[in-house]
């Protein structure tokens, strides 16, 4: 049998792409529904469960609710759900309300019930925030998405926090064993080290040294390596079917960006501050104009770091979810293969984006550190 390798791969890909076609091909009934029921557009702002779940509007509302649910942090680890039945596990709730209250998030029954702890009653809002209510039967007052009830300080181990902990532990064990394997093997990597050593060297030789300089780069290497692998691992975890969205959460990217900003400003030498407040080499009136702009730049730099990572991952997740939702929107044989092909292509790009965003975050952090420790002579900058 002589087949060129490429065409074989193509046939295989085409076959896999057609798989959903057979799965959905016999549901001709539903494809008719789409066309007939688009006319019955529901008016007003209604919730997903109040609409007919089989109408187009109902499905759209359901998809929107699901997307919203996915991109938000959550108080339980829900792997998947089917007809209101949740598969997953609850997480501990830790709140401060005149004393610490600790209880399991299963008490909320996925937001349908009031949780009681030491005589206080709490309810989970639609925005995944915990609100205080008066009694065991009370509903949240005010608008569905912006309740007017009193909020409590929430220190819960949420889905994102759990993932952060897991990734931190994973990284600790991974890189600890990596370091030990170097010691055992006499400076030659083994096992995981084979995979990660080139990446570590790349960060040192291509990111840290060119941007920070030979003299100072060692101080920042630990942070740069940590941030690179942390962001990369979190991005990759977000692409697994576990349905977690950690780096697509603005609070977490803000935390990372703030650490970068703190390190930049606290390790900066006098040249850095000199360039901000009294830019050398320009006329005096220009110096006065430049000072506030440069000062603003101190805040804008970490802000752009935060927004870039958050928006890239968030947008990736939303688009991927929308493509998967095509199946439920079309409800005909078109939806399956189309959704499969598009989401497969996008997932491939997302793997690249996961690495690229980790790289960009590390690169820009190194750039900012480099500007903080740059010596007076800019002419012979390392490049």
């Amino acid at each position, binding site marked *: 049998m002589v087949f060129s390798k490429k065409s074989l791969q193509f046939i295989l890909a085409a076959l896999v792409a057609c798989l959903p076609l057979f799965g959905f091909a016999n549901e001709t009934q539903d494809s008719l529904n789409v066309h007939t029921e688009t006319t019955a557009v529901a008016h007003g702002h209604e919730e997903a469960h109040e609409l007919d779940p089989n109408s187009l509007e109902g499905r759209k509302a359901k998809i929107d609710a699901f997307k919203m649910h996915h991109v938000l942090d959550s108080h339980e680890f829900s792997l998947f759900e089917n007809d209101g039945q949740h598969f997953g596990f609850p997480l501990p709730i830790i709140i401060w309300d005149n004393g610490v209250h600790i209880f399991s998030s299963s008490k909320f029954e996925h937001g349908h019930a009031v949780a009681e702890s030491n005589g206080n009653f709490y309810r989970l809002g639609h925005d995944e925030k915990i609100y205080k209510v008066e009694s065991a039967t009370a509903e949240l007052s005010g608008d569905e998405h912006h309740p007017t009830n009193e909020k409590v300080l929430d220190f819960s181990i949420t889905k994102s926090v759990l993932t952060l902990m897991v990734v931190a532990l994973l990284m600790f064990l991974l890189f600890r064993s990596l370091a030990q394997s170097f010691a055992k093997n006499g400076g030659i990597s083994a096992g995981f080290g084979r995979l990660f050593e080139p990446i570590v060297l790349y960060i040192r030789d*291509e990111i840290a040294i060119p941007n920070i300089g030979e003299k100072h780069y060692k101080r920042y290497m630990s942070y740069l390596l940590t941030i690179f692998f942390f962001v990369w691992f979190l991005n990759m975890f977000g692409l697994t079917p576990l349905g977690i969205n950690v780096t697509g959460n603005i609070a977490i990217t803000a935390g990372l960006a703030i650490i970068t900003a703190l390190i930049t400003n606290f390790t900066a030498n006098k040249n850095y501050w000199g360039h901000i407040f009294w830019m050398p080499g320009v006329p005096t009136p220009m110096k006065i104009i430049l000072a506030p702009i440069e000062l603003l730049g101190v805040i804008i730099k970490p802000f*752009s770091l935060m*927004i*870039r990572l958050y*928006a*890239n991952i968030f947008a990736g997740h939303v688009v991927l979810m929308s493509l998967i939702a095509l199946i439920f929107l079309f409800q005909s044989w078109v939806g399956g293969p189309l959704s499969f092909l598009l989401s497969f292509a996008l997932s491939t790009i997302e793997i690249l984006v996961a690495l*690229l965003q980790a*790289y*960009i975050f590390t*690169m*820009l952090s190194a*750039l900012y550190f480099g500007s903080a420790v740059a010596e007076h002579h800019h002419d012979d900058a390392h*490049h």
Partner: protein
Amino acid sequence: MEIPRIIGAGLVVIGAGIGIGRIGGSAMDAIARQPEATGKIQTAMLIAAALIEGIGFAAIFAS
């Protein structure tokens, strides 16, 4: 006031798209002229693209 904001965000995104496109195109030209400098050009290209991208995202979230 919703529509002008959305249009403004759209304009910014168009600008950011043109900007990133120009960066990519110029980087291609540069790599074609000097293939041995590919690594350096790619690094500079990614940084510039990331900075513009940040503005585009800021516009989307401000709208």
